[in-house]
């Protein structure tokens, strides 16, 4: 597959990196020479220097042969025009990153899809969506619904109170008598492990579960997390992301938003009627106390500065807020700050890149979990397939692969060893990257 990415910012580069691992043929376009040099040196990706709204530049990138054109520069109009031109010049599928939510919501005035942009993405709204999911079940670090919630992928940290630590997974099966969920992967000290029955669980493990709808609460009980109901949220930072988050969450929670800039506060106050806007500095502890931070269930810091966000989340944690979420746009910092003490970190560029990545791999890869070298993929079992002959434990699956759930006739199933696959089952497979190719071979 030939893919052109316009924009060498964080989204573009991260996306290029993800796609390159899938052996796609990638060309990156950017107007800054230094950025391209960096990419060529570190990722070995072909590049074209220039503005992607130019015919010449697009031609140089051989857009007429491209299967996919993704424009993710920071400038919205560039993205829209590039994809429009690219489509006209022969790109098969186009995706543009936008900032103006009106384009996404209001399709009656102008449907950009009609004009030739096949998909629109907005990092801000993706970040808002991610936070919405996290607040819905605050004990989790990640949650991802598969096929409208028939199965759910959930991530959480095991802490000291968890009843399962220092036991093997097999030993804890009494906590899961109805087989409503299973552990599919865990991350220990930066290393991804696809677990077996004899894998031991330790404090601090980042564990990923796959669960049926009715098993979600059981997962929390299994890990020893108390159910926590979020009622009110304190948001710091009123930039675009903060605005979307406050707007989206105001339907479900009481929201207070703290913004430093007077003009921005006024703008937000006029446009977000259900949100209480406070004009002040979100890192000022006395201001936070004055605003009653102790009474808040969740604290979301989304200012433009990652350090500020992490710091104010730590302060909030110290002051007794149960759930803290920090936006960390600096990817370097993101890698190393998971363990500092903030409950969840979000990165809207990663969110956008993951979203696009998921879209490209349609019918194949479902989710790419950051910091985990495994992917969850979906396959359909064909008739007379080898793998539908025996129960799962008797199949000789490659190492580091786990079959982690099946959707059969619109119902989700958890697939422990005795499960028997049938034709037309949609199978979720969790696999380390190096085992991907072997998994694909199994389903052929």
């Amino acid at each position, binding site marked *: 597959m030939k893919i052109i990415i316009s924009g060498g910012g964080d989204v573009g580069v991260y996306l290029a990196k993800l796609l390159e691992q899938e052996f796609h043929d990638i060309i990156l376009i950017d107007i800054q020479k230094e950025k391209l040099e960096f990419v060529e040196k570190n990722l070995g990706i072909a590049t074209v220097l220039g503005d992607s709204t130019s015919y010449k530049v697009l031609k140089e990138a051989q857009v007429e042969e491209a299967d996919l054109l993704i424009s993710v520069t920071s400038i919205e109009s560039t993205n829209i025009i590039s994809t429009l031109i690219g489509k006209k010049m022969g790109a098969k599928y186009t995706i543009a990153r936008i900032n103006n939510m009106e384009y996404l919501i209001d399709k009656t005035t102008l449907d950009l899809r009609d004009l030739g942009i096949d998909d629109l993405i907005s990092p801000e709204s993706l970040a808002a969506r991610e936070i919405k999911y996290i607040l819905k079940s605050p004990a989790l670090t990640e949650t991802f619904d598969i096929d409208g919630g028939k199965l759910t992928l959930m991530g959480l940290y095991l802490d000291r109170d968890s009843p399962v630590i220092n036991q093997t997974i097999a030993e804890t099966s009494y906590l899961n008598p109805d087989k409503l969920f299973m552990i599919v992967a865990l991350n220990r000290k930066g290393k991804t492990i696809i677990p077996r029955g004899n894998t031991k669980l330790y404090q601090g493990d980042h564990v990923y579960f796959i669960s049926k709808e009715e098993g979600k609460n059981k997962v929390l009980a299994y890990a020893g997390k108390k159910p926590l109901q979020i009622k009110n949220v304190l948001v710091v930072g009123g930039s675009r992301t903060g605005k979307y988050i406050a707007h989206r969450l105001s339907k479900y929670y009481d929201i207070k938003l703290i913004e430093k800039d007077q003009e921005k506060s006024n703008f*937000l*106050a*006029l446009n977000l009627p259900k949100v209480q*806007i*406070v*004009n002040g500095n979100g890192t000022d502890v006395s201001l936070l106390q*004055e605003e009653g931070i102790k009474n808040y269930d969740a604290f979301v810091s989304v200012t433009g500065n990652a350090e500020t966000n992490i710091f104010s989340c730590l302060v909030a944690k110290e002051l007794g807020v149960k759930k803290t979420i920090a936006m960390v746009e600096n990817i370097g910092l993101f890698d190393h700050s998971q363990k500092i003490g903030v409950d969840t970190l979000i990165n809207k560029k990663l969110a956008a890149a993951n979203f696009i990545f998921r879209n490209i791999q349609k019918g194949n890869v479902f989710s790419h979990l950051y910091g985990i070298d495994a992917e969850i993929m979906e396959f359909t079992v064909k008739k007379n397939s080898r793998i539908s002959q025996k129960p799962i434990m008797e199949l000789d699956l490659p190492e580091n692969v786990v079959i982690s759930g099946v959707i059969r006739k619109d119902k989700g199933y958890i697939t422990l060893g005795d499960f028997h696959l049938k034709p037309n089952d949609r199978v979720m497979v969790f696999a380390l990257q190096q085992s991907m190719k072997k998994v694909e071979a199994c389903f052929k």
Partner: protein
Amino acid sequence: MNLIPHKKKETFRMLFKQIGGVQIILGFILFIPMIVSIIYGEYYSALGFFVSSIIILFIGYALFKFNDPVPEPLSRHALIIAALGWMSIAIMGSIPFMITAYITPPDILNQFIPSGAEYTSSLQFFKNPLHALFESMSAFTTTGLTMAVHEPSIGKGLIFYRSLAQWIGGAGFIVLSIAVFRQSSGRAAMLLYGSESSGERLQPTIIDTSRSIWKIYLGLTLFSTLFLIIGTYFILPDYSFKENIFDSINHAMTGQSTGGFSTLDDSIAGYNSKAMEMLYLFPMILGALSIPFYFKVIYEKQFNQFWKNIQTRSVLLFSIIGGIILSFLLLKSGFETEPFRKGIFQFVSALTTTGWQTADINGWDSSSVVFIVMGAMIVGGAAGATVGGIKIIRVLLILKGVQWHINGYFVSDNAVQVVEFNQKRLLPEEMNKELASAATFSFIYLLLVLISTLITYYYMGDGYTITEALFESASAQGTVGLSCGITGPSMSPVLELTYFFQMWIGRLEIIPVLVLLRTIIWGTKPKVV
């Protein structure tokens, strides 16, 4: 934009030219009551209108022509033009009353008196220039207080003139002159337009806006006329059809302009019919709703404005609730035999500042009088309509402000506390500004009513109390026109002059008059206060 201050002489010439323009319109308007006089065979009245028209046209044309060309008015001049323009209209408009009063021979005068009546013609009162001025001011400001004790005895021509004056005064002379002359450029026209009414821009240009206003106003009046003719015909089938048409045209004009002059001696009570009083509630409420509201309903088909528009909703709600409360107060006092009939009609008449009267308010107990003053006459109808008073929107804004202020104690100092008012969201500083201007206006308004109450108390005749003084003063200030009997040809000239100025101030919403005063005392130069 021309920001260079004019020379003193040029300023004066510019003012005179604007006033001249308004006079020319008035001069032509006088031809209409002249024709009515001829139709009814009142040739002396017709002559009176003709002579007045010539005099006014001559003065107006002279002012207009000899002061051309002049620079365009600046923002500080717009309000002065409005104040002076209205004063000049009231003065010039009194000429037909005086001339007709002097030239009509006594035997003709006696023909105006309805057969069997025991009084002399009220026309003779207008020989006194002060009475003529008062009547003219009361007419053009849509007040409705009158020196014509027995209306039918001044002749059909003059009755029609009074009604027409209220009708034109209601929509506004400045708006009319903009629509007719198209003399001023956009900016100057906008300034003038804003000086007289609430200044909402309905069409892209001010000329189109003022034309739309007149179209809507005319349409509503025609509708109201038909409504009254048909209603009267069905309720009082024995009533002379000729009289019906004359009454309905006049009452439609004075109802739409919320003026409240009547063709009958006893106002609407003269019909002696409960059904007729109910019929007449409709034109009053029609007149109390704002023109921009009608514009949105008629031109833009926004029918949800009936409940979305805060002013329309409030006028309707206030009418019902206030009418019922007043009725209960009257019921308790036991003075009126039909407290609900009188209470509801009088409350609506006061709230809409129309001033049609069906009750003998002089006999009411103090609580009813004070309630109608506070709850209706001082409040008034919707801004953007032809009503007087503080206007409902300001009252609601101040109430909202109180709520906002109290609520402020429950949120932190740093919170940006937005106010939602009249389908708009206001930031704290915007709200403060709006609140300050509404509160200042209301304060001056109430202060003027109180001062005038004291003057009334000092100069009114025997047999009246301080509550009645308050009532009469609020009626003049709010251009309502209800009277408990203090106003009449025999009143003290000091009091008559007080009300004369009060009506002027009330019509213009105070500020233009204060600007004029400031100009007279300190000139137009900016200074530190």
